[in-house]
């Protein structure tokens, strides 16, 4: 009980989260003023909830790896690889039995998760045992997974899939809640539990803050790293399974912008690129904010969707500059902090 109250308190205290909440509220007010009837519809929120899980899941994986002090740039590769392999299996199953059964879908999901797990373990081995810097290791494995995906499909899309799969995964629970959202929520709950209630979570944060100390405390840091990248792989694979349902097709170059977007989400959500810091709540909030902004922008037909990377990149840079000015004033813009201090603006350190 007391821990949960503390979590709520620190949740609100967290500067990143405060900032994101402010941004979200401002945006919601903005949308309320300019596009109330088009934005505040049930359908719009339902659509948003169906859209963000595919990249949201990948972002959660990237966040985990960043907490460990690394990064996973291969998530999109894993997702596409998974969706292509599962798409192929889907076709085979459909051909064989004509009708896709619930068991068939389960089998496909299982295959997807397995692929994700193996891809993640592969990344984990590269990072922990061979000690390749995570950026490069996952960059390489991204090419590799993408390469395998291209080889399987000969560069073409996997299409003409039985509609049953998409209907199920991209369907609605009780006709209201998008199934994609259910997946996302379940993963969020599992990961929160892992991070906050298990030794794995504690070991992960410890590894991210000080790897040597972890080793001296007797933690098997290699195992923790492998587990982390495996979880990231599974998250990415689930993202891939949802992409397969959302597009009802698969291709090796779907969702390439998601790599950057995932890093952006993690950083916006308060995950430190140097490791040891980051929380699920922040990341989930960042995912929601991004989804709301991009969906909101869609309500302005005169603004092309091509502006979105501009906003996101800009947001990422602004947040980081803001962080250096406020939290880490010593190293960066000390002058700005002094300036703000003169204006009586509190720039106290957020934890």
């Amino acid at each position, binding site marked *: 009980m007391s*821990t949960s109250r*503390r979590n709520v308190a620190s949740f609100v205290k967290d500067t990143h989260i405060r900032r994101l909440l402010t941004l979200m509220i401002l945006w919601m007010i903005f949308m309320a003023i300019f596009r109330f009837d088009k934005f505040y519809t049930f359908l719009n929120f339902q659509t948003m909830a169906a859209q963000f899980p595919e990249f949201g899941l990948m972002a959660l994986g990237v966040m985990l790896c960043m907490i460990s002090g690394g990064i996973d740039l291969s998530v999109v590769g894993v997702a596409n690889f998974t969706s292509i392999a599962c798409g192929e299996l889907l076709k085979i199953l459909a051909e064989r039995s004509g009708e896709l059964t619930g068991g068939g879908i389960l089998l496909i999901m299982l295959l997807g998760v397995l692929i994700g797990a193996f891809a993640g373990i592969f990344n984990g081995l590269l990072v922990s045992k061979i000690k390749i810097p995570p950026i490069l290791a996952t960059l390489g494995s991204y090419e590799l997974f993408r390469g395998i995906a291209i080889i399987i499909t000969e560069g073409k899309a996997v299409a003409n899939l039985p509609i049953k799969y998409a209907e199920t995964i991209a369907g609605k629970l009780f006709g209201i809640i998008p199934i994609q959202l259910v997946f996302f929520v379940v993963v969020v709950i599992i990961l929160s539990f892992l991070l906050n*209630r*298990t*030794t*794995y979570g*504690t*070991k992960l*944060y*410890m590894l991210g*803050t*000080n790897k*040597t*100390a*972890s*080793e*001296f*405390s*007797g*933690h*098997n840091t290699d195992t923790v790293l492998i587990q982390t990248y495996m979880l990231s792989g599974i998250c990415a694979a689930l993202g891939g399974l949802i992409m397969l349902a959302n597009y009802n097709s698969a291709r090796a170059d779907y969702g390439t912008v998601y790599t950057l977007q995932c890093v952006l989400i993690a950083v916006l959500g308060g995950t430190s690129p140097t490791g*040891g*810091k980051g929380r699920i709540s922040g990341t989930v909030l960042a995912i929601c904010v991004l989804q709301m902004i991009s969906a909101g922008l869609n309500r302005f037909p005169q603004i092309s969707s091509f502006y979105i990377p501009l906003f996101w990149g800009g947001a990422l840079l602004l947040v980081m500059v803001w962080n250096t000015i406020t939290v880490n004033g010593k190293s960066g813009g000390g002058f700005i902090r002094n300036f703000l201090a003169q204006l009586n603006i509190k720039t106290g350190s957020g*934890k």
Partner: protein
Amino acid sequence: MLKDNILKVVDIKKSFAGVQALKGVSMEIKAGEVHCLAGENGSGKSTLIKIISGVYTPDSGEIHFGDKVYERLTPIESIRNGVQVIYQDFSIFPNLSVMENLAFNQELANKRRLVNRKRMRQIAEEAVAKINFDIDLDAKVGSLSVANKQLVAICRALMFDAKLIIMDEPTTALTRKEVDALFRIILDLKKQGIATLFVSHKLDEVFEISERFTILRSGEKVITGDTSELDNKKFTYYMTGREFEEEPFVPKNVSEEPVLTVENLGMNGFFKDISFSLHKGEILGITGLLGSGRTELALALFGLQQADTGTITIEGKPVKLNTPQDAIKNGIGYVPEDRLTEGLHLPLSIGENTIAAELDKLSNKLGVFDEEKKKQEINRWVKELAIATPDPNNACSTLSGGNQQRVVLAKWLARDLKVLILNGPTVGVDIGSKYDIHQILRGLAEQGLGIIIISDDIPEIITNCSRIMIMKNGRISAELSAEEADEQTLTRYMM
């Protein structure tokens, strides 16, 4: 003989964010003298050095170089007045050659835009000639030994017509032989009229090398005087403002059976034929020069490196220690030398740090924490070791140095160890905390823990250990009881 002051600081005050780091310090350094600056962590030593070198601007006070008086000083002005600082990390470029490391400063000071290797080599050759330092100028500095890296830094400092060289704890990573070599160089510089300000809190070094000393405590100068008038007790008193009586350690509850027995342990290239046993209630000291194999032995006992030959027995059972997990499972704990970088997760909470080594004991088979047990355990250790904190959920970085050390100890005590190995338990620790740590260790031994202290701090070993093992070139050169041990004997067996 009357010498002129080359540097005089008068009533220097400096505060950071409201905290007064220096409260009006004055001191002077005479030409060609070796002056020791001592003080505990946080006493203001490093602030003073940074003010002398122009890195910080004092809030008030004056800095005199001969007739020139400065109220604020830039790094360049400081250098022009003959001040050179050799930082603890030597400020070198490990990826570049000795030549470039030596020549860069001067080339930059002369505002050179283009690289002239011939000129740079010439500069480097002149620099190494000053202390007759024989080194391959094309070698990468990263491949040199610590001592040679330091010599590179010294050579570089000497190029600027230095009158005063400030060395910030220069002996920390040196072997005894290398320390001797360094001292010879300092004396040689002295002959050339170059003064040295030697920052250290190692008592024996202060006595050995310096003529005069200044001691700072909480931002104030406690005393300046001739080293000849100083003794051990006074030194401690000036440093801490407290008096410590450390009685030699007498073990009380030594067990019949050894808790740890090591037989013929060997690791290729590091140590060989190591046999000893440790009983509960004992504190065994292991000492030796850097490179004598003492650190590697500790690592082997904790499973961080694997011994090639020999056996390790815990309470009569032979064990294999391939990983730290194996060692911990068998009741062995290890406190590393550098607690901040190797022992703690500073941004994480105090509570999490205390339970870092027993996570699996506070959780079920699936790794899910028993929250209640976790909380109890944290509270227990915070209380037991008197860790001064309002809330164990605070970050470990909010603690003072001494309390952080208690956290590291708590981490291991929470494990119900049989053997605790401490590598340099008080390196870089000020005298007050050092005393406290020794008391904690003695208490633990009395409660029946077997303790091994690995240290090159000879007085520490002699007062706190019941038995002492000396290593030399990877072998045990002697094993002494506490009564037989004195500094000369130990040093003789080490060399």
